[in-house]
């Protein structure tokens, strides 16, 4: 009797599933928190009435697709580096968020602040926002790994 080995699932299936689920979670929390922050702290957003931000709505679709672009990119990163992240769900998530912030966000925010006429508080909120997004993705990925 022949013994057939169980086929190994393609890593792309896991990346796709992780990206999609984390993207949906990120979409809800990102835009939920954005609208809540605009409602609660409108003064923080006055500086967005600025010509460097797209005004005519022509790129709104790209704006709303951002959580999925981020979650798929982070799903690839997670697939490669998850074995280096110890601890429980929250610890893994925070560590993942910190890695992403150090490797990607800080250099990008640095060059943004140095080259574009945006204020320091705005760039700092982007850094914090990106860290929270990556942490949430890390928590979702860790949860999906254990599930």
């Amino acid at each position, binding site marked *: 009797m022949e013994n057939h080995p169980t086929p190994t699932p393609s890593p792309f299936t896991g990346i796709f599933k992780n990206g999609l689920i984390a993207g949906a979670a990120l979409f809800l929390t990102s*835009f939920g928190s*954005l*609208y809540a922050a*605009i409602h609660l702290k*409108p*003064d923080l*957003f*006055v*500086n*967005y*009435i*600025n*010509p460097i*931000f*797209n*005004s*005519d*709505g022509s790129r*709104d679709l790209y*704006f*709303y697709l951002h959580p999925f672009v981020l979650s798929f990119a982070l799903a690839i990163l997670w697939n490669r580096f998850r074995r280096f992240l110890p601890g429980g769900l929250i610890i893994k998530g925070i560590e993942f968020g910190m890695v992403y912030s150090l490797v990607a966000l800080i250099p990008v925010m640095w060059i943004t602040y140095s080259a574009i*006429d945006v204020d320091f508080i705005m760039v700092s909120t982007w850094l914090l926002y990106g860290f929270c997004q990556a942490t949430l993705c890390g928590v979702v990925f860790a949860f999906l790994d254990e599930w």
Partner: protein
Amino acid sequence: MTFCAPLVAQQQWILASHSTLKVDGKTNINSFACDISTYGRTDTIWTTQTNKEGKVKAGGELSIQVAKFDCHHKMMTKDLQKTLKVSDYPFMKIRFTEFSKDLDDYVKAGRIEGEADIELAGVTRHMNIALSVIPGAAGQVQLIGVKQILFSDFNLKPPSKLGGAIKVKNELLVEFRLYFQAR
């Protein structure tokens, strides 16, 4: 045979450079007031009484430099100027075409109706404007007009940022104070 036009007296009015313009608007997060604190130049308009109803024909053009709008917030100023397409259309123009009464009929403050063509971002709209006339000393007249306009009247789209999360409302309240001196 010669045809002669009826002789009508034309009155010329010099617009003083300290005339002002203010625009009030709202967004879903704040309200803003942008102004031009001084017109910065002098211009001339004229009025001619033409018919029995006492209506007065007017002419002459006021050219307002869009780049002089100041919203007292650097980025909002830049954004308003971009929205008004300052690089393509550097001037907002007001051409009065008619007044319901002559400006020099006033010895005390009163109200009149004015009609004007307003040109903004390359689009001209004919509008009725309620005006207050305040006579001053020696042929001086102050004309105060308040008019609600819409960005969409001039085919402009009010700015919307962050996927529409921050929106400027379509309505703008324009208030001008024009100081005229009879010539």
